[in-house]
């Protein structure tokens, strides 16, 4: 458990090409048989007459990275996973862009299915990340996770 704490935050959206790069990096790991990827995308929700055009994320970075590290290490202990990669946006992410990326790999498919939803839910529940939903009329509201 002395692994270095990773920084999960990336400035702005997570791009499809960076996701492709991450997948590609696993093609040399020839004991992997199954990958499972969750992507959170900013929805253009309509509230009343206003439409969300972006979310601006802020976070208590140190606590978020520390808790994510704990979630990661616990998942490696519990599930037979080869790799795990977690990224979350900080700053502005427009509707349609990706803000959250969780990528698990294993030799077989059961561990990736068993673990991914739990990791995603824990990250959403436990990490001090705050979303400010920006409307098309430049007003905003604070995002609430359900």
């Amino acid at each position: 458990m002395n692994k270095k704490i990773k920084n999960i935050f990336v400035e702005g959206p997570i791009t499809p090409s960076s996701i492709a790069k991450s997948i590609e990096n696993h093609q040399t790991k020839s004991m992997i048989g199954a990958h499972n990827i969750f992507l959170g995308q900013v929805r253009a929700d309509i509230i009343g007459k206003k439409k969300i055009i972006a979310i601006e994320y802020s976070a208590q970075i140190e606590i978020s990275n520390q808790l994510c590290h704990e979630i990661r290490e616990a998942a490696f202990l519990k599930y037979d996973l080869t790799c795990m990669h977690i990224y979350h946006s900080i700053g502005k992410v427009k509707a349609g862009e990706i803000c959250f990326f969780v990528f698990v790999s294993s030799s077989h498919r059961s561990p990736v299915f068993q673990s991914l939803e739990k990791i995603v839910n824990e990250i959403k529940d436990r990490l001090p990340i705050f979303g400010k939903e920006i409307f098309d009329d430049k007003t905003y509201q604070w995002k609430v996770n359900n």
Partner: protein
Amino acid sequence: MEIKLRYYGQLQEATGKSEEIISKHFSTIGQLNDYLMKSYPKLENHNYKIAQNNIIESYNNPLIGNRIDLLPPFSGG
């Protein structure tokens, strides 16, 4: 004792600031919170957790750290 306070998300609006340093003594996190609620009455309309030196603490815990963060409801993902 100097305490660096940081306010996150909507709490920056409730307090009108993102951070400040205060020089006061409190025995518990709860006592600090009582003081903040008096200083910023709008905090009463908010749910938040308090972290001390990067660890989220309960109100009964002793105040021993010098970095305190007020964290509104989490909405990552």
